[in-house]
């Protein structure tokens, strides 16, 4: 396929570091859009702040680069004003679960028909490698040089508990699965979350040697440490330490917010 058709080529090459996984996820999104045959004018790509926040700058859709953590709030307005638009939100792990944590869980609760793709690299890459809510316990960051004392958020479980219609997780190494999950999430009615494990060699790899220092080593680390969900259910907690569990967590059909809101409008008009 021709990626260049979907890119603003005058803005390329992008600012992401060498070996950063974000470009792989963006490619996956573009491939799915190409497969589904969506018109570029019918898509809105919304982002917050951070490395993932740069994504809308490079793609030739309707794009919106918003304030930190508020990507989903802006997307809510967009979706309600124009329900026919395919609204895709790209967000980093810090953007989605720390600064925009409330927006994230409440969008899932309301089941807004928005596709959220979380670029999870376990760190705040752009601002200098601070520890984020998904940095695992004992892992290092510039703000936790002796190891992180906190527990990490599991974004997929959080979305599942908050009531999203579709939740899946893959890594940047497993692109075929990532494509499939993104495609399914785009076709699902209601709030869908795809958590894509990305790699940050510059900030995370530098501090945590076991994952490898370069983008390639981090990609191979994902390859060696990924466990599918079905297999993970038979394993003990100790065996799953440090593993990436991938698969589809939730897939259900339930009425989305725009549908329910249309009903409210109808009821109000009748009275």
């Amino acid at each position, binding site marked *: 396929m021709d*990626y260049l058709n979907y890119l603003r080529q005058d803005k390329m090459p992008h600012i992401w570091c060498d070996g950063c996984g974000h*470009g792989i996820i963006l490619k996956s999104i573009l491939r799915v859009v190409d497969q589904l045959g969506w018109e570029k004018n019918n898509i809105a790509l919304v982002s917050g702040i951070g490395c993932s926040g740069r994504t809308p700058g490079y793609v030739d859709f309707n794009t919106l680069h918003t304030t930190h953590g508020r990507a989903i709030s802006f997307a809510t307005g967009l979706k309600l004003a124009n329900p026919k638009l395919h609204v895709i939100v790209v967000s980093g792990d810090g953007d989605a679960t720390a600064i925009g944590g409330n927006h994230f869980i409440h969008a899932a609760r309301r089941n807004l028909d928005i596709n959220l793709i979380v670029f999870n690299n376990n760190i705040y890459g752009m601002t200098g490698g601070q520890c984020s809510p998904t940095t695992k316990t004992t892992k290092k960051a510039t703000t936790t040089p002796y190891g992180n004392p906190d527990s990490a958020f599991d974004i997929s479980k959080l979305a599942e508990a908050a009531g999203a219609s579709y939740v899946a997780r893959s890594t940047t190494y497993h692109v075929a699965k990532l494509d499939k999950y993104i495609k399914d999430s785009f076709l699902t009615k209601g709030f869908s979350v795809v958590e894509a494990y990305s790699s940050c060699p510059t900030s995370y790899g530098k501090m945590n040697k076991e994952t490898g220092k370069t983008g390639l080593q981090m*990609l191979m680390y994902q390859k060696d440490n990924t466990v599918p969900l079905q297999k993970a259910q038979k394993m003990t907690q100790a065996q799953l330490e440090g593993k990436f569990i991938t698969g589809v967590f939730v897939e259900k059909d339930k009425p989305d917010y725009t549908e329910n809101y249309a009903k409210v409008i109808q009821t109000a008009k009748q009275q």
Partner: protein
Amino acid sequence: MKKNYNVIVNQKWCKSCEICVAICPKKVFDMDNFYAAANRPEDCIGCLLCEKLCPDFAIEVRLKTEKEK
């Protein structure tokens, strides 16, 4: 019949992460002056791993047309 592919590397966008060099099952790529270069495109089997895993949109793999053969 063996299929032939064109492997095009846009060196202006390449950031020399070397993912393509390591991931290619047929070792089509080499590093050439810090940037990836497709030195053995005739070995390419068209698995598209390099294209999909290149984070910088720098690699394009395309089936050769009748004219190019």
